[in-house]
């Protein structure tokens, strides 16, 4: 009995009370003056009263705060960061990682190793890229969500850009493709009478990484093609025009399926990209009537053509301009032609740009929204 008491009393080695924790919600990585800058967004548990006063600003000020530290390596930066915080830094709830394009240019291999090695980090934290410094985004106090980390996470959940977790980041870069696509975040300009920080980050464009270095930013409409081929296109409304008619139809795809079919025939490597999509018309600014099957067929054709163009443009950029296998063609070849892949693995860099890629699109308009014919046309004659 006394032994038990001694053991228990001297024990509790791992016990950490919640109020001794600095809960980190998001992490940002910048690179400045030859040093890695690590920023963390820390939650401030202020005891809020039972009925939270909302007022005009929204979230109470100071729900989160940021702390930054730099070092030669990211681990050193982490260490220095802890010294600036009076509580134990707890990275177990870090949902969001933002890597600035500056840091990306230098190569993110170091950071990937850190995220997949340090025990507390979550492997399915979402990774984003940012145009400006990451710490600027982390410093934002989002009016709608509890923190900007929360809003970023929700946006990733809704698949507004690409949905890339740390584990997938590792897989993509270490895989045969050696590339990764990240969503690029910008900061929304704040409302005029708001505080400069009370605003939200938002997705605009994509950052492309080749072999763990940042190489290019891609904006619309090219980014749509990229996402389409990368099987990540989720939130888009496309305007499609039918030639003789004035105005356009806007189609929202309900479902997009991209299937990659590799083929090796007589030493010629080729890839067939099969895109099937079904969409719903959400806006009709033309005078065309969607109950007319001819209109629908024409619409589908135009839409197919548009998608094909987008895909081709994206492929052009990936193959010729960047010479980077963004869409994981390599993985497919390895899966289905393992022997040939083994032989040609080293030549993939030269093989890829010469790859024959055939894009086939099947687009179907399945719904026309709540209305049939065009609405809102003044002085409409009923026939």
């Amino acid at each position, binding site marked *: 009995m006394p032994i038990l008491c001694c053991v228990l009393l001297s024990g509790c080695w791992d016990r950490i009370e919640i109020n001794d924790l600095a809960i980190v919600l998001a992490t940002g990585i910048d690179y400045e003056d030859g040093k890695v800058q690590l920023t963390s967004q820390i939650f401030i548990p202020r005891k809020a009263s039972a009925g939270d006063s909302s007022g005009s600003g929204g979230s109470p000020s100071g729900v989160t705060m940021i702390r930054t530290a730099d070092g030669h390596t990211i681990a050193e930066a982490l260490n220095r960061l802890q010294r600036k915080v009076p509580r134990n830094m*707890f990275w177990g709830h870090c949902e969001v990682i933002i890597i600035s394009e500056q840091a990306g240019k230098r190569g993110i291999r170091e950071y990937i190793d850190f995220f997949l090695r340090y025990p507390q980090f979550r492997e399915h934290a979402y990774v984003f890229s940012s145009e400006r410094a990451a710490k600027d985004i982390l410093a934002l106090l989002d009016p709608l969500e509890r923190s900007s980390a929360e809003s970023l996470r929700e946006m990733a959940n809704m698949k507004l850009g690409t949905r890339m977790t740390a584990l997938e980041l590792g897989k993509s870069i270490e895989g045969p493709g050696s590339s990764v696509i990240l969503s690029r975040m910008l900061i929304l300009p704040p409302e005029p009478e708001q505080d400069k920080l009370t605003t939200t980050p938002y997705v605009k464009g994509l950052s492309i990484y080749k072999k763990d270095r940042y190489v290019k930013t891609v904006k619309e409409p090219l980014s749509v093609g990229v996402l389409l081929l990368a099987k990540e296109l989720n939130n888009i409304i496309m305007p499609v025009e039918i030639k003789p008619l004035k105005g356009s139809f806007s189609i929202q795809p309900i479902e997009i399926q991209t299937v990659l079919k590799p083929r090796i025939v007589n030493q010629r490597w080729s890839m067939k990209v099969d895109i099937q999509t079904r969409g719903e018309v959400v806006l009709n600014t033309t005078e065309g009537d969607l109950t007319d099957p001819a209109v629908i067929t024409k619409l589908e054709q135009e839409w197919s053509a548009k998608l094909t163009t987008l895909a081709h443009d994206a492929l052009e950029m990936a193959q010729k301009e960047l010479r980077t296998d963004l869409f994981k063609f390599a993985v497919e070849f390895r899966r289905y032609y393992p022997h040939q892949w083994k032989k040609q693995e080293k030549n993939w860099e030269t093989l890829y740009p010469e790859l024959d890629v055939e894009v086939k699109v099947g687009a179907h308009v399945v719904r026309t929204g709540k209305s049939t014919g065009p609405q809102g046309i003044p002085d409409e004659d009923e026939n």
Partner: protein
Amino acid sequence: MDTSLITQQNLPLTGHLAVDQEMLSSVFAGCSDVVFHTFETACHTSALCVYCIGLCDTERLERQVLTPFQEMGIEAAQVPLASVKSVETTTQAVQAILEGEALLLLEGSMIGTTYPLYKAENRSTEEPLAESTVRGARDGFTESLTMNMSLLRKRLKTPALKIHTRNMGDRTNTSISLVYMEGIIDPKLVQEVKKRLSDLKLRDVLESQYIEEGIVDQRYSPFPQMIATERPDVVASNLLEGRFAILVDGTPFTLIAPVTIFSMLQSPEDYYQNVFMSVFVRWLRYIFFVLSMLLPSAYVAITTFHQEMIPTVLLLSIARAREEIPFPALVEALIMEIAFEALREAGVRLPKQVGSAVSIVGALIIGQAATSAGIVSAPMIIIVAITGIASFMIPRYAASIATRLLRFPMMFLAGTLGLTGVMLGVILVVIHLSSLRSFGTPYLSPVAPTMSKELKDVWWRPAPRNKPD
């Protein structure tokens, strides 16, 4: 047996009334409830009637025994009463008087006659307070052994229901009955029980717990190895399953054995309600049984060791709530649990009128006040409340004691080693339960060792069988 307490010597009755009266009054000296009534029979013989006022039905004594004697002058044995007995020694006479019989001595006769006129004040049967059901019989055992036996016999009208009565307790001489169904119960089990009962040397028997502690396999275990119940239908159904029961005079709580932990978690109402309802409630009980033991420790373990397990949103709220609390989670949990146990115990002592109001309002106010004062946090109060509710869900009060007690060592383990500690505690409890036997039956059957036929009663509620065995 301390004979000096009962009678000085076991003397045979002489024929002389004066001598016998002297002998008996010396034994009962100072017992003002024992009456010595001398009278003359119609045949002009001196007669002595000794009886105990509290235990004997004086009205019938008057009417059926004394009056016929005094007026009609019949023979002692011809009194129109059932089961008239004769006694020859003082010990027997004293015993008979204490059992409520009236002793009649005649001048010149060396044999006394006793008439069974036992009638004592009894509570009429009412619904047991601690074991009420929504649907089901509402009679409960009382303190009278004969009445309890009658409640059982009423339900099991078969000669296979055997009742063995004996006295236990040197000083109290309490009657107890061993009841079982012959043909269903294992005869070796009956032998074992009888052996244990006769080996048991008790000075006093005031409640069935005295006997229970003496005959169970493992005295030092928080888990009960016999069920104590006030309900005759519970006893009856258990007897029909091959168990035995021990009724003790002076207490309505009857002991049943052998039992398993699953008997502790079943209520008779399971069979009186719809199947789906019973199964649902049964599973709810299993879950809450585990919760009542593990919830505070799990909370302490997760919030102090494994914070990454908590959903982020919840963690932020808990962090906010705990910000002002000066105590570590373990201490906070201990304070609240002890306070809750104190409230519970105090609530038992409160008179009925005040009890419910005080407990509800008190708990609410104390909880609210404690939170506002910053002594405990709101999540902790919720945890403690749920644990309390969980422990009330266990049908057998004795089993809920076990979980209440085990909660505290678990909390210490959780505070030291986190979830690992909680799991170690669970392992220790399971080891203990696995090694426990209730009169030879493993405590965890039918789960371990698995008896597949019985298993259906654990996770489902099978329909009562129709065919005779």
